[in-house]
């Protein structure tokens, strides 16, 4: 097929598609409370206190020290294998994010923190980390998501691209020096995800 055939075919499309595009009005902006109530619909990492919530095979754990990923039904569980002695876990923050992102709220979890942002399309954007790995697991939904292996400041990372437009994408990586697990979700391209990830810095 060539571009001319495609262009000619576009000229033959039914008027309703032209009218829909020409008369489109952007959706009105809902309140934060609306989208926050829809967290089940987004591609979201959920931090779980302890490891009692999930039961899955531990055969593969073997003698390993560090963050391990296991698949459980339609999500990945990230848990820390071994005993990490963390006396004073560090706190982190994003050093850069796209200028259209607006801070909404943040809260502490058993092993880290969660920051919630949004943008002009009310996308739920999340930055979270676990710096005290003995106290938390995290899981990431992966229903059909495309996985891309990348690096963040030379640390291994995975970007998840959701096939569902209504769900956000995400990047997960671990800082091997501090045994900290990080997660960012939102509608970003690969370059933006990595730039955000590489900007993460310890709070002063």
């Amino acid at each position, binding site marked *: 097929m*060539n571009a001319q055939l495609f262009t000619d075919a576009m000229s033959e499309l039914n008027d309703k598609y032209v009218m829909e*595009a020409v008369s489109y009005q952007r959706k009105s902006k809902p309140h934060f409370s609306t989208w926050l109530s829809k967290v089940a619909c987004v591609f979201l990492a959920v931090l779980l206190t302890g490891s009692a919530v999930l039961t899955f095979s531990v055969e593969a754990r073997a003698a390993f020290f560090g963050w391990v990923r296991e698949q459980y039904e339609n999500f990945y569980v990230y848990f820390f294998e071994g005993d990490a002695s963390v006396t004073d876990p560090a706190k982190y923050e994003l050093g850069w994010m796209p200028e*259209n992102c607006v801070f909404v709220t943040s809260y502490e979890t058993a092993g880290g923190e969660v920051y919630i942002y949004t943008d002009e399309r009310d996308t739920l954007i999340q930055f979270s980390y676990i710096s005290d790995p003995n106290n938390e697991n995290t899981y990431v939904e992966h229903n059909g998501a495309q996985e891309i292996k990348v690096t963040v400041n030379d640390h291994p990372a995975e970007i998840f691209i959701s096939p569902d437009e209504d769900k956000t994408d995400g990047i997960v990586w671990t800082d091997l020096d501090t045994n900290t697990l990080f997660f960012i979700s939102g*509608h970003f391209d690969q370059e933006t995800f990595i730039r955000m990830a590489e900007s993460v810095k310890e709070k002063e």
Partner: protein
Amino acid sequence: MEDERIIELFFARSEQAIRELDSKYGKVCYSISYNILNNNLDAEECVNDAYLGTWNAIPPQKPNPLLAFVCKIVRNISIMRHRTNTAMKRNSSFDVAISEIEQCIAAPETVEESLEAKSLARIIERFLDTLTEENRVIFMRRYWFSDSYADISKLTGFTEKNISVRLTRIRNSLRNYLVKEGVLL
């Protein structure tokens, strides 16, 4: 003025019909043509040619919706001008949009010989029906209206990067759909 009233003026062979048409839809018509031709003078000429085409078509035709009818004429005339003006520097928004889609539809083997534009249009329509309203609008604004990412961003409220990501996914989906439909082998 209501579209029905403008069409009545066309039927009455009143030149006021052209003035009303231009007043109501001139801006969008010019935008479509300029996105394709990237030249003010050419765009104005094509829009005027489209008005003449509309004048000749109505009557006997009584288009509904009038806007889509006129937009199609503008687009077709502008694309014809674009194709005939081979010396034109190819840097319009239309060129950029088409180069994007060329990569999507390129295939070593196709059934192009037996495929007509109308048949392909029906397949693209079925594909469009699988998209969300927002993605369908983004696709149409990019590949029918030849809007820039900035224009689509302004219309939809998404960031330009978000538009770029969505269009990449839509093109990939379209390619898969065309393969599934046997258009691309």
